[in-house]
C-alpha cells in the first residue's frame, strides 16, 4: 500500500449555479499492464476487463478503465487493494503481467452540474462529447495528463497526479465562478 500523500483534503472545493467541483476521498488505484489471454487475470479480479480503449467495466466496488491496448486503471476501496494484489500475484505464473499499487499517486476530482462538460473545455482540447456516458479516457488537461471518467452526461471524475492537483483545482475553481458570472 502506497501512502496517500495528497495535500488536498476531500470535500467541496467550488460550487456555483453552473457546476460543482469537489475533491474525492482517497481510494485504491491499481495500474495494470497485460497482454495475451487475460482470462486468468479476469478470474483473479472477478471482472471482465474491457478491451476497447476508453471502455469501462465494474464488479461491485471494483472499476476498470481501459487506457490503452494493454493498459488498465483499476479503482477499488482502499481496504480491497491488498486482496486484489494477492489474487493477481497468484496467477502471475499463468499470465505474467504488471500490477502496481498507485493509490498514493493521484487524487480524484468530482465535476458535476449543468455546465460540467463546458467547464472541462477550459483545459481539454478534445471534444468532451466524444467521451460517451459510462466511458473514460486518458487525455491532456491544461498541460498535465489526467484520466477522465464520464459517469453521467453532467458528471465526471478526473484523476490527477498529486503534483498537478492544486494547480488544476485552482483552474477549475476559477472556471466554476466564470461560468456562473456568464449566466447572469
Amino acid at each position, binding site marked *: 500500500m502506497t501512502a496517500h500523500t495528497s495535500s488536498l483534503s476531500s470535500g467541496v472545493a467550488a460550487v456555483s449555479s453552473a457546476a460543482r467541483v469537489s475533491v474525492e476521498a482517497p481510494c485504491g488505484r491499481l495500474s495494470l499492464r497485460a497482454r495475451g489471454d487475460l482470462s486468468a487475470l479476469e478470474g483473479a479480479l472477478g471482472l471482465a476487463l474491457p478491451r476497447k*480503449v476508453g471502455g469501462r467495466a465494474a464488479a461491485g466496488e471494483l472499476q476498470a478503465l481501459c487506457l*490503452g491496448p494493454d493498459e488498465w486503471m483499476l479503482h477499488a476501496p482502499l481496504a480491497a487493494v491488498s486482496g486484489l494484489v494477492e489474487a493477481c500475484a497468484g496467477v502471475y505464473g499463468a499470465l505474467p503481467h504488471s500490477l502496481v499499487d498507485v493509490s498514493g499517486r493521484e487524487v480524484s476530482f468530482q465535476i458535476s452540474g449543468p455546465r460540467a462538460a463546458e467547464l472541462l473545455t477550459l483545459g481539454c*482540447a478534445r471534444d468532451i462529447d466524444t467521451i460517451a456516458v459510462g466511458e473514460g479516457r486518458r*487525455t*491532456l488537461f491544461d498541460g498535465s*495528463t489526467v484520466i477522465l471518467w464520464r459517469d453521467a452526461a453532467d458528471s465526471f471524475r478526473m484523476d490527477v497526479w498529486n503534483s498537478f492537483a492544486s494547480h488544476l483545482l485552482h483552474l477549475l475553481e476559477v472556471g466554476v465562478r466564470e461560468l456562473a458570472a456568464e449566466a447572469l
Partner: protein
Amino acid sequence: MLLIHCPYCSETLPEVEFTYAGEAHIVRPETPSAQSDADWEGFLFLRSNVRGPHYERWRHLHGCGRYFNAVRDTVSDKFLTTYKAGEPRPDLSTLTVTQK
C-alpha cells in the same frame, strides 16, 4: 492545430495529445557488431528529410501511450494516413484521399 487519427484508439484527436518521434521504418541492424562506423552513422544520424509525403512515427503520449506510423506531407502538413506500428509501409499511390 492538427487533428491526428490514432489507429489504436480509432479516434481523431487534437495534436496536443501526441508527440513526434522521428522518421519511421528505420530498422535496427540485427548484428550490431558486424556494422561499420559508416553503417552506424547512417542508422543513427542520416535521415531522408523528404519534401512531400514523409513516413514518420508519432506517439499518442497523453492517451493510449502507443507509438504508430503516419504519412504526412511536409509541405502542406496534411496527414495522408496513420497505421499501427509493425504494419507495412502503405503504397503512396493509394493515398490520394486526404485523411483528417
